[in-house]
């Protein structure tokens, strides 16, 4: 129960931080509430931007993925992000910041509307962005319920844990707006950077050192492959580098880029971002892999037994039994289990708080959705003109409450698997929207019809992949089911983890076709007016003054 009390104390602290931000800064105008008045300093900008990107998956999912798949997890999800995200911030984030500063944009759709002189096409982009963002918020409420329940040993039921998380996040976003969210994210990132390293040292010393654990894994036939990448194809590995392309397209990240006081603040963020990824992901992945050697932790031993039964491929097992074994072998809670076993109670509580911090990263998405709704729909369709800016901010706050309440209601009803998949589609969807953003910022000849083609293609391809995976059941681990074969080439296959197109993840063709559509449709349609182009491109290709 002590870890649960520490977690509740932590929730109280972040609630105070969010409300303190509200009391110290009266944020009555839209820029003040939604963008912290474009005034965040360098340290808060770096740590909160990084914290915004740390989701439940970063901590629980990465260790769980590493537990099942080995060291490949780091290359798939961390080191590729270490390159792609800072380059995206350097190229795209700085330009978005400059445009926001110059033209007063608060959301990406405002920029698209101005850049391509469109109205309802911007609304279509808003609708797709919002639809792809909602699963994150639901997942966070579910993760909060699961984590609180786990750290309290079941004393806090799932429904109460999810409710507490929804109320806490809603409260500090409601009162603190972007400033409160940024401060909470900064606090959370510092907490996790400190205690992640502590967990690694503590668990390492408790199991008699990591060298012994690694040698024992290498010595066993079933686990030696976890220390290599022999189970993953190079083509699949390459596909994964397309996933972090989504980061700079996420509305909450773009909106966050607009909060920096000066462009100089991107310098430290771009430089330290890869190192922050290293500091957070390496301990999680390594501990996840090392958990395979922890047979003395009863719950982890049970997972290993379930995995061994699955690997044996007993034909007598029914589909229900296989599903049950897969559930039992899943490793999402290995970090919590090893901390419960090896760490002193107070440290387990602090780490539980750190895990909660990551799980609650939905605050930025809730605020972004609220910002987008009030700016791209409410204000755009006349609400701001009719009711004034104060009413716009109040509408944003009401929308925060509404989103949190709906997310909580859905989280209580829906099975978790559905939304894990939805998040998987969302990453691919946002990656496929990258050509839209890049064309708007860097290609004069791009048009609103090209943007519409990309939007329709992205929505259709995400829906197609989701329907395909719902219609064709996943095969057992280690096997694939060819669905469409041309000659000797498997064009579309159903894999245990999703779908493959010529051996690549769907995100690869989705993004490439998206780029092609933007180019072809833009060339076939009339370009924006010279006045619009003059607002965005100087002869040197930079953003220029509109005055």
């Amino acid at each position, binding site marked *: 129960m002590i870890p649960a009390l520490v977690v509740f104390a932590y929730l109280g602290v972040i609630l105070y931080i969010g409300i303190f931000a509200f009391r110290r800064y009266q944020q009555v105008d839209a820029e003040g509430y939604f963008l912290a008045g474009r005034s965040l300093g360098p340290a808060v900008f770096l740590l909160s931007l990084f914290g915004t990107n740390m989701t439940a998956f970063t901590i629980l999912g990465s260790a769980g993925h590493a537990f099942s798949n080995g060291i490949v997890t780091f290359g798939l999800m961390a080191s590729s992000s270490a*390159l792609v995200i800072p380059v995206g911030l350097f190229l795209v984030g700085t330009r978005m910041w400059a445009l926001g500063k110059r033209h007063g944009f608060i959301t990406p759709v405002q920029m698209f509307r101005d850049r391509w002189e469109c109205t309802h096409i911007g609304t279509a982009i808003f609708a797709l962005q919002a639809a792809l963002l909602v699963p994150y918020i639901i997942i966070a409420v579910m993760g909060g319920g699961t984590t609180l329940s786990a750290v309290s040993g079941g004393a806090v039921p799932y429904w109460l844990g999810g409710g507490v998380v929804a109320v806490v996040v809603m409260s500090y976003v409601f009162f603190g707006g972007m400033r409160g969210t940024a401060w909470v994210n900064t606090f959370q990132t510092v907490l996790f950077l400190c205690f992640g390293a502590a967990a690694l040292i503590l668990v390492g010393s408790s199991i008699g050192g990591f060298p012994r654990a690694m040698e024992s894994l290498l010595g066993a036939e079933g686990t030696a492959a976890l*220390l290599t990448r022999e189970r993953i194809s190079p083509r699949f590995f390459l596909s994964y580098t397309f996933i972090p392309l989504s980061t700079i397209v996420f509305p909450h990240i773009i909106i966050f880029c607009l909060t920096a006081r000066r462009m100089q603040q991107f310098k430290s963020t771009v430089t330290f971002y890869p190192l922050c990824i290293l500091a957070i992901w390496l301990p999680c992945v390594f501990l996840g892999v090392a958990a395979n050697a922890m047979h003395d932790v009863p719950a982890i031993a049970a997972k290993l037994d379930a995995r061994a039964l699955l690997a044996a491929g007993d034909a007598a097992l029914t589909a229900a039994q296989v599903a049950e074994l897969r559930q039992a072998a899943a490793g999402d809670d290995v970090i919590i289990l090893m901390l419960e076993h090896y760490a002193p109670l107070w440290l387990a509580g602090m780490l539980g708080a750190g895990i909660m911090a990551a799980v609650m990263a939905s605050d930025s998405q809730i605020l972004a959705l609220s910002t987008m709704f009030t700016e791209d729909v409410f204000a755009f369709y006349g609400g701001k003109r009719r009711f004034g800016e104060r009413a716009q901010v109040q509408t944003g706050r009401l929308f925060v409450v509404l989103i949190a309440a709906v997310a909580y209601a859905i989280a209580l009803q829906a099975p978790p698997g559905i939304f894990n998949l939805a998040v998987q589609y969302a990453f691919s969807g946002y990656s496929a929207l990258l050509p839209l953003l890049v064309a708007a910022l860097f290609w004069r000849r791009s048009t609103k019809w090209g943007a519409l083609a990309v939007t329709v293609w992205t929505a259709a391809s995400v829906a197609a992949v989701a329907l395909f995976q719902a219609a064709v059941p996943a095969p057992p681990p280690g096997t694939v089911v060819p669905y469409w074969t041309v000659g000797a080439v498997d064009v579309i296959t159903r894999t245990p983890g999703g779908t493959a197109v010529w051996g690549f993840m769907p995100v690869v063709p989705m993004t490439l076709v998206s780029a092609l559509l933007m180019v072809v449709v833009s060339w076939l349609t009339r370009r924006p007016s010279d006045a619009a182009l003059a607002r965005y491109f100087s002869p040197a290709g930079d953003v220029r003054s509109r005055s």
Partner: protein
Amino acid sequence: MTRWMLALAVAALYVLHQDIWFWDTARPLVFGFLPIGLFYHAAYSVAVALLMVLLIRYAWPAGLEREAEGHGGRRAGGGAANRPPETGGR
């Protein structure tokens, strides 16, 4: 010229992410416990941070910064198209 070389360096790092040379082997265990494939990608992240230092040093878009920070006449939610669609535009 410097910018092209930096772009080439970014592309080279992207290619180096695909380290097929350490694909099937765990040894040597660096520091006695880190499989070589994991150590490679940890070192890769540090190399990326160093490249970012070079990007900022030699390719920082200072023009954007000067123009944006020297501008004072913007308004929130700006842009000509960000007005209600009274004209029925797309």
